[in-house]
Structure formats: C-alpha cells, structure tokens
C-alpha cells in the first residue's frame, strides 16, 4: 500500500463524518435556495418549483433584509473592537508581572465563555429589567433616570453588544495571553536598556509580536459576531421595532416560523457570502500591513 493510500485511509473516517454532516447538508441547502421549498412542498413534493436566483433577487428588495443587515453590521462594527479590546486589556493585566493569583483570575475571567448563552441571557434580562433590574437600581443610586434597556429601540442593541462582549472576551483573552507569553523577554529588556517607556514597549514590541495572533482573533471574532442569533432570540425576540433582528434571526424566522426553506437558505448563503468577503478583506489588509 502506498503512502498516499494509507493517508487517505486514515482520513476516511473524518472525511465521511464531514461529508455526511457538513458537505451534503451545505449542498442541499444551496440546492434549496434555488427552489421555492415551503409548506406546500412539504405536503407534496410536486409543489416544488425551481426558481433559479429568484430568492436572492427578492431578498435584495426586502426592506427587512437591509434592516437586519444594518443591525448585524452595527453589532459587528461596535462589538468586535470592544470585544478584542476587552480581551487584550485583560490579557495584558494577567500577563503583567504585578498580577497576583493569576490562575484564579484567569479562571474567573474565562468563566462566562463556558456558561450557556440562554441561561446567562435570562439573567441579563433580569439585570436590565427597566423596573426591577440591578442596573437601573445602580443608576438610581447615582441619581440618573432609568433606561428601558431592552424595550427602547436605541438601547436594545447596545445592551446586546454589552452582553456579547462580556460573554465572549474570555476566549480571545486566553489566545492573546498565549501570544503575549510567547514574546521573548529579551526584547523588553533591550527596550528598557534603550530607555523606552511602557507605552513605546507596548506599541513597538507587544503589538507587532502579537500581530499574527491578532489577525487570527480578528477573523474568528468577526465571523462569529456576524452570526448573531441566540442573544436577540432570548433577550428581545428581534424587537423592539425589529432593532435587534439580525440576518441569522431573519433566516430563523423565514425557515422555522414561516417554513420557507427556499428563502431561508438564500439568506444563509447571502450571509455566508458576506462573511467570506469580509474575511478576505481583513486578511488582505493584514497582509498589506505586514508587508509595509
């Protein structure tokens, strides 16, 4: 048996699993997005029509799709920098020689990541309740007016961003912490001898050395944040006034509420296209930055 065949043999189980549970469903969904599969087609397959790109065309003319896309971009553009900023900040603190009880703090800061979204979202809903929530209680102590966090279209998305950042920053923190620990201490020593300030050490040693890690974290976070769903599903049901309806939420509604799987699959592939384009753009920017 040649080496190549042995390799394929070892790969077969994994490829089979991937094929059955990933590639086949994805191809199926792509096929569905070109049909008008709906309730009637579920009843009788003869009610299925091939509609080509009609679903995609309709999607572009749907105001709610653009609203959902706008909401999703809002979430990504504000949420990703906040999330990575929080991760980097806590990673720097944990990596600082001054930090005590590192293992404990690392565990505590990582804890939100391993909790279930739904359970924690329910607790956040209590915290941000207009009348009984702790957050408004704290505002009252400071003499500020209560905010209708989840009921006001202007505040609902910021509240969801805060929740998502809190929930997710621990994961990137661990990756960035590993990146920080991989920076050779000699570089800092040399900088100190040259008289560089803490800030300049950060700008000219830490950030450049973290660059590959940052690119990875950025790509993963952007792709993850574009798939916003569970948070609005549990906390606001897409409201108020559809201000927290994300693209994925729209897909869920189309697919599982109205059972229009053709349209829902088209939404899914549109989102896939957007994430792919944004990721390519990020990677290209990162490469150009590295070259410069």
């Amino acid at each position, binding site marked *: 048996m040649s080496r190549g065949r042995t390799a394929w043999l070892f790969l077969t189980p994994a490829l089979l699993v991937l094929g059955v549970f990933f590639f086949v469903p994805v191809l199926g969904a792509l096929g569905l997005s070109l049909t008008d599969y709906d309730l009637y087609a579920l009843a009788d397959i003869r009610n299925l029509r091939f509609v080509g790109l009609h679903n995609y065309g309709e999607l572009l003319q749907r105001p709610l799709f653009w609203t959902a896309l706008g909401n999703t971009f809002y979430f990504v553009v504000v949420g990703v920098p906040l999330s990575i900023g929080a991760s980097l900040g806590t990673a720097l603190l944990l990596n600082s020689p001054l930090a005590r009880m590192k293992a404990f703090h690392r565990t505590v800061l990582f804890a939100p990541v391993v909790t279930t979204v739904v359970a924690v979202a329910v607790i956040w809903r209590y915290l941000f309740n207009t009348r009984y929530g702790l957050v408004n209680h704290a505002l009252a102590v400071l003499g500020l007016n209560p905010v209708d966090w989840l009921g006001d279209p202007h505040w609902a998305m910021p509240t969801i961003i805060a929740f998502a950042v809190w929930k997710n920053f621990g994961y990137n923190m661990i990756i960035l912490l590993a990146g920080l620990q991989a920076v050779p201490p000699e570089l800092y020593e040399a900088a100190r001898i040259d008289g560089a300030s803490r800030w300049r050490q950060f700008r000219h040693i830490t950030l450049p050395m973290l660059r590959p890690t940052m690119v990875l974290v950025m790509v993963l976070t952007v792709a993850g944040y574009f798939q916003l769903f569970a948070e609005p599903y549990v906390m606001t049901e897409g409201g108020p006034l559809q201000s927290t309806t994300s693209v994925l939420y729209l897909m869920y509604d189309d697919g*599982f509420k109205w059972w229009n799987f053709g349209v829902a699959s088209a939404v899914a592939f549109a989102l896939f296209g957007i994430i792919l384009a944004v990721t390519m753009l990020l990677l290209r920017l990162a490469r150009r930055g590295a070259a410069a």
Partner: protein
Amino acid sequence: MSRRRWRLLAPALLLVGIAACRGDHDDRHTLTFWAMGRESEAVAQLMPAFEREHPDIRVDVQQLPWKAAHQKLLTAIAGDTTPDVAQLGNTWLAEMCALDALEPLQPYVERSRVVQPADYFPGIWATNRIDGTLVGIPWYVDTRLLFYRKDLLAAAGFDAPPRDWAAWSRQLAALQAQAAPDHYAILLPTNEFEQLLSLALQQDEPLLRDGGRYGNFESAGFKRALAFYVERFKRHEAPLLANTEVPNPWAEVGRGVYAFYFSGPWNIGEFRQRLPASRQDEWATAPLPGPHGPGAGIASGSSLVIFRHSPRKAQAWLLIEYLSRPEVQQQFYALLGDMPPRRSAWRGDALRGDPAVQAFHEQLERVKPTPPVPEWERIVTEMQLVAARAAHGELTVDQAAAEIDRRTDAILAKRRWMLDRAGRAR
C-alpha cells in the same frame, strides 16, 4: 458482510423486530396528547377522571410551550412523529390541513351523542371547517371586546357603552375632551392585529377574494375599518404605543389613563387580581359596537384535532368527546378561565352569574372566522405592520390598503399557482 454471517444475523433481527412489535402492542392504548402553555397544565388535572372511565386508556399529556409549538408540530409532521391528539390554535388548522396531517372528523361527529354542532357558537364551529372538511372540534374560545371605565363614561354623560360606531365615536371624543394630559380615551396597542381585524370582520366584504387568491384590502369595507382605526390615533384618542411599552395596562385603566381597553378575556382575571376590591365596580365589559349596531368579533381559540397517522383514532375521539362535555368544559373554565365554545356549558353557575363574562357570551354569538388559508398569519402580521405605519401618519388609508394588498398578493403567489395548476389538471 458474507452471506453466511447474514444468515446468522437474520433470525436475530427478526427477534428484535418481534420484540419491537410486542412493545408496541403493550402500550396500544397510551394516547399521546400535545397541549400548549397553561392549558396543558390544567388539562392534566382532568385526565384522572377520564382514565377512570376508560381503564384501558392511558393519556400521556405532553406540554409544549406556545412559542415552540408551531415549529414542533411542523417538524413532527415532516418527520412523521405526530401525536394522537393535539390542541391547535384555530388559525393553524388551514396550515395543518394543507399538509394533510389531520383526520376529517365529520363521520365521528355524526355518530357522536356528545358533540352536537348546533350547541356550538356558529362562528367558532366555522373556523374548524377548512374547504368544507371538518378537521377540529372547538375546545375553548377567545375574542376581543371592550373593557371600559363605567364611572368615566358616566362623567362624560353616557350611561351605557356604545352599540354602534357613531355612538362610539361620540363617546371617544367626549372622553378625550375631558381627559387629563397623557390620558387617552382608548388603548389600541399598535403591534396587535386583533383590534383592526375585529373592525374589518364587521364589514360585509371578505378579506381575501377569488377563493383566497388575492387580498381584498382595497375594498370599501376594509378601508372604512382602517379609516376608523387610524382616526383614533389622528384625533389623539389612542396613544401610538406598542404593548411592550404598556407593561401594566390594568393599573393604567385603573388610574384612568385609558377609559376603553380593546382586549381579550384573560383581562377579567387580571383586573380582578390587580385592582383593589373597592374599585372593582368601576370597570365593566361590553360587546363590540359595529358600523350599524352590535358588531362581529374575531373567532380565535383552540381546537382539538386527531392526526391522520394516529393508530388510536377511536380512543382519541373518546378523549375529545370527554373534553367536549359541557360539565368538563365548566371544570376547565373553573381551572383556567378559558371560555367554553358550547352554549350549554355557559348555563353553569360560574359563567351565568358573572356579569363581566356575559358580554363575551353575547360577543361569541357574533364572531366570524378569518379566511381559511395557510398564509393567514403572515398576511395579518403584514396587515398590522402597514396599519401601524398608517397610524403613525406615514401612509394614507388608501396607500396603506394598497400596500397591504400588494404584500398579500405576494404572499399568496404560490397558492395561486397551485390552485391554477389543480384547476388545469381537473
């Protein structure tokens, strides 16, 4: 696998198969009953009496949260794992019928001594008939009407609630004239479709035309209803608020922020619980005024259905008959406050002696079904989204009616294609 091994394996598989059949045989009389929300909790308490009457039947009541119920039903139909009996919101019947999931019940009713169609409110019974086929038996009913403050109405010079739109308009105007700032004559939450739908059902024109092929929202009748609805906001008799912004309408009606509240039967319990005893005689209920005299209302509620693939249809029907008995419906009302669909059940003391529910009794005699098309929930959702824009003044009544028709026609495109194809095949 070699042929020899296959031969060894075959008897083993056969045995497993027999064991599986045997297991099936043992629980042949276990009925699976899907019920939703609070109903599922209350109905479980009615099951021991049924099981005593039928020792050979056991009922497994499975509880579905309302929010997940629709999705779970469709998934069950797609995967052929439907229960024997289920509670279905009556607006879902057309959809389940389009999927051919429900057992026609007319033959059962004809043989039944318990389920008497003439005893049911006709509008409610009609919601269970889809394209001429009876697919559900009404279990409890729900409609919308007016809750109002008697004392505020009296102070404005009216000793009785309105019976028609003209009187209603006069009362609303008079109430608004004497209202304090930020107080309103009526609460019509802009994200609830039931209010406008009730007014629309009071018109002679149907809401869809040509056998459910096109929207009929540009009819004179619907425009009249929409104009009456929008007028309330234009004259500031109703605030532009969604129900999420009015977390406690009962306290606000109690404080007189709203004189009329257009809503459903669960509010009776809420008002009794939330307002102090001394203020209980300030509020009352009234049937809906119509364009010319008492008007129609919506016929919502839940029905009991048998799934076509159930192997225990006879037992399932026994359960439906049991839950349809007037005395069991009265027990159900006592447990939950869900109103019975049978007139004879309304003769019980708890219902007859309660003035607040009497208006519902009167209204239920005049409820009308919505068009029985599977797309109806989507249509009515779009109707309200557009109507809310008209209420905000972004669209005129004519523009809004045209927009609702446009969206409805788009939603119904697939249905038209199917109906036309079926027509050609015939």
